[in-house]
């Protein structure tokens, strides 16, 4: 009898759901009262009750999120590892982890990459794909939205799934800052001088950090304390093996700087984290970008190598193939801000992404807020009134490093694995970062 009731209830829910298949404007000249958050509203109020779920077969869900160790550029374990090897490592690991996915089903591989030469990197990604044993029919491309490229890759795959281009896709990110330093080719457009915002796009990132610190009076002590805490948390997490489930060890070679000797190694841990860093140690470092400034090598993100990967698919695909769903992709937003204070990006992007997801910023249980600089990260935490206890609980880029193109995917892996190590009340997570030239990006996910 109760079985019957359940069947009936499910049937009614399915019937009612079909009443919502049309929600986007049908014609150009329509005046629409639809707002983006309504679908989520409807889910929270109706589909989630009385069953406590908001599951729809067309949802985009994440079924896998992994990363390589993040290591110091030119000094760390991956300094001599090529981009294609990093890509191959994470792609192969992702497929191993989700063995029920038929590789032929994968509609696209989108790789976030920032510094590598654009065309060469696209080719390296294709090579990496083949090194990982992918079938020839699966395509690949790169995406570059600076520091959010890895997250943008996730968003691109999610939107392609929503658009119906394919049912399952891979988002990834890679950066080899050892081999591809930040640089500017060619001269500067003199016209930029006449448009302030255009001119300000040329300001070095460290100077934008100083701008944020000066404008909102974020002291050197605050920044150093933030940095020390990042190292403390990351060190503790590494000690407790918290990163194990998200890290894919990289079998690679390393060249000894002195002897030029090449040897095979397995890199399985982040090597930028420093045990025992204190505010006092950090206070000794000299400001790098401005005389009397506050941004130092110690309270800025590290230059690093690494890669990350996230597999997204339609819920119906996950169900059909028995894939374990980690989270539902709820929303994504990229928003611009003044280039000279680009670090405030998360403070504008997070509220926007939350609104699109139909949730309040205060509803979010866990944040991965990229620490480009302690100045901007502190500003964002303060501005959004976030509890420090739920932001970067395992440390951030100041301790772990910031391999630009990989960071978005790295943060997603760190976030989802942390969420799953907690009890079910940890439901909503956000990944966010600031973006050079003045932008912020944020994504909201709901853990399952």
């Amino acid at each position, binding site marked *: 009898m109760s079985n019957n*009731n*359940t069947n*009936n*209830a499910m049937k*009614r*829910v399915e*019937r*009612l759901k*079909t*009443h*919502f*298949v*049309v*929600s986007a404007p*049908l*014609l150009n*000249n*329509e*005046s*629409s*009262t*639809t*707002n983006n958050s*309504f679908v989520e509203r*409807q889910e929270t*109020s*109706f589909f989630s*009750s*009385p069953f406590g779920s908001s599951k729809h077969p067309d949802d985009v869900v994440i079924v896998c999120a992994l990363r390589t160790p993040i290591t110091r550029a030119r000094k760390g374990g991956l300094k001599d590892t090529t981009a294609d090897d990093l890509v191959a490592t994470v792609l192969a690991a992702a497929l191993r982890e989700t063995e029920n996915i038929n590789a032929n089903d994968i509609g696209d591989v989108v790789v976030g990459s920032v510094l590598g030469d654009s065309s060469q990197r696209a080719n390296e990604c294709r090579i990496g794909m083949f090194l990982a044993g992918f079938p020839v029919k699966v395509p690949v491309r790169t995406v570059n939205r600076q520091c959010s490229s890895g997250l943008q890759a996730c968003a691109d795959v999610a939107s392609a799934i929503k658009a119906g281009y394919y049912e399952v896709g891979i988002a990834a990110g890679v950066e080899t800052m050892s081999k591809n330093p930040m640089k500017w080719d060619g001269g500067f457009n003199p016209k930029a001088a006449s448009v302030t915002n255009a001119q300000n796009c040329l300001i070095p990132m460290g100077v934008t950090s100083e701008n944020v610190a000066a404008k909102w009076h974020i002291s050197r002590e605050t920044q150093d304390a933030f940095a020390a805490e990042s190292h403390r948390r990351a060190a503790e997490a590494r000690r407790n093996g918290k990163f194990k489930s998200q890290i894919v060890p990289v079998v690679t070679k390393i060249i000894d700087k002195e002897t030029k000797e090449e040897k095979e190694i397995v890199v399985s841990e982040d090597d930028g984290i420093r045990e025992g860093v204190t505010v006092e140690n950090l206070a000794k470092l000299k400001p790098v970008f401005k005389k009397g400034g506050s941004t130092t090598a110690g309270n800025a993100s590290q230059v690093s190598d690494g890669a990350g990967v996230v597999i997204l698919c339609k819920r119906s695909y996950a169900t059909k193939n028995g894939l374990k769903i980690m989270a539902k992709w709820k929303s994504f937003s990229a928003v611009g801000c003044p280039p000279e204070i680009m670090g405030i990006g998360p403070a504008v992007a997070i509220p926007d992404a939350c609104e699109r997801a139909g949730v309040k910023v205060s509803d979010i249980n866990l944040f991965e807020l990229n620490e480009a600089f302690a100045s901007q990260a502190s500003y964002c935490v303060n501005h959004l009134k976030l509890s420090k206890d739920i932001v970067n609980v395992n440390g951030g880029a100041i301790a772990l490093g910031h391999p630009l193109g990989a960071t978005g995917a790295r943060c997603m892996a760190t976030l989802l694995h942390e969420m799953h190590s907690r009890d079910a009340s940890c439901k909503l997570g956000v990944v966010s970062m600031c973006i050079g030239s003045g932008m912020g990006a944020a994504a909201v996910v709901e853990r399952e």
Partner: protein
Amino acid sequence: MAATSHFRTPFNGYSVKFSPFFADRIAVSASQNFGIVGNGHQYVLRRELNALNNNNTNNNNNNFPHSGPATLPLVEEARFETADGIFDCAWSEESENVLVSASGDGSAKLWDVSRPPFQNPLRSFNEHEAEIYTVSWNPTRKDVFLTASWDDTIKLWNPRENAHTRGSLKTFREHTYCVYAAEWSPHHADVFASVSGDCTLKIWDCRKNHSTLSIPAHDFEVLCVDWNKYNDCVVATGSVDRTVKLWDIRNPKKELSVLRGHGYAVRRVKMDPFDEDICYTASYDMTVAMWNWKISNTTSISNTLGLGEGGERGVQPSPLLRQWRHHTEFAVGLDVSVLNRGELASCGWDSSVQVFSNHGPDPLPIL
């Protein structure tokens, strides 16, 4: 009179119907857990019209915060409980105390407000194999009603004649998916219209076994239908495609007009009993709207292209006359009083029932 009234049902509202006999009597159907699983309530409410005079002087504490033009109390006169949800109700056209409810378990239940709860329901008509979504009492012949069901059929019942057989008079099988609504024509005793998840509008003569007309009315499921009270050939349909279409059933090739403006599916459509040009809608976008269907979006587009008659280029009169936002969840039930001109009642999943006027103040959301 522009006074508003409100009532809160513990369950989620599904349907509201003005009594055709008493201006102050309103039937409300509600279902637990949004009608997905759980019980149903059939209410009969009374509006205390006399309360208006003394209300403003000594009974202010009874008022809802908006003190403006008075609010009239809406009080429970009867409440009937069912094991499954109730999705719709209809007043008998011949007996002022009798009404019928459409239940999720496939039964139609007949109630008599003048009898105590233990004598109710008077009858339960159990034939449908799935949820009944709407009931319609024949306003002309007065002794029969229709049930539209998710078992893809429509059934015709006479509660008196069949007392001994307890069966329906007839079953209409032609739709290929859930029948969401069937509505009698107010002009012809044997004619009714039905709409379905198979996206069609069908016109029937209940003396015949098959529909006399079948119109592929929308590209998506059609959820509601109503007849114009002045022109016996005009029918309005509301759909998941978010539009209302007006049809002249003599010329089914193309709709008379399309009303756009709702953000989600249109769940109820009602034609005004006092004004040929006016219709009302309730939508999953949580709003209730008032339209002049003779101002069509399509007409206005052709006007702007210089193709239509009248209207200056670029001028687009909107058919949407008024939109109410007092519901905080799906607006599901809607009715127009046949006794008080311009008086409307709506209910929704926010559990609120609101009575208001199309020319009066906006009712406030009940939180």
